[in-house]
């Protein structure tokens, strides 16, 4: 039982760290990584809930486990979309900040070169 608690606290801490990085880090790619960290922390808490629900000869409750698998897939596709958006932003503006006061190269498309 205590094992589940240890990883649950670990997941909570990872979620907190991820949230901090998501807000405080100026670089979008780092924000994406931090968002994944936040997600993995929440998944870990889910895993603890699943582990505590062990019954009927199963090592854990299969429903939260299946939800985590679905969640990981969705998180990965969101990450891929975010990375693609970021790369496109870099192609169009030549920079990768979320700072709006940077009009350099707007309107042209260096990707077509």
């Amino acid at each position, binding site marked *: 039982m205590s094992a589940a608690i240890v990883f649950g606290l670990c997941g909570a801490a990872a979620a907190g760290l991820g949230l901090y990085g998501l807000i405080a880090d100026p670089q979008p790619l780092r924000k994406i990584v931090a968002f994944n960290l936040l997600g993995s922390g929440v998944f870990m808490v889910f895993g603890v809930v699943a582990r505590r629900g062990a019954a009927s000869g199963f*090592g854990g409750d299969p429903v939260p486990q299946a939800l985590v698998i679905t969640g990981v897939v969705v998180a990965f596709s969101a990450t891929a979309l975010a990375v693609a958006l970021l*790369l496109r932003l870099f192609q169009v503006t030549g920079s990768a900040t979320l700072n709006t006061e940077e009009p350099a190269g707007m309107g042209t498309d260096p*990707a077509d070169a």
Partner: protein
Amino acid sequence: MIEFMTTVLGFILAMLALGLVRILRGPGDADRMMAAQLIGTGGIAALLLLGVVTAVPATVDVALTLALLATFASIAFVKKGRANAPDSTEGA
């Protein structure tokens, strides 16, 4: 036997934690990738031992997946070196 394997598992985990220091210090990207490579292999060993300790035989499948895919990060790293090369035919 279980106690022995748990101890070895803890020892390998400690080695992985030490390997993290190389990721921290760098100095080059190659050094960081090497540390990641060591952590990948150590993670495979740890998984195999963990499978015996927790009596979950399917853990070997996780180790198999890791053995197959742990190198992908390193391959991406090598490709990135290529993308930055002046004679490169790729890159943005």
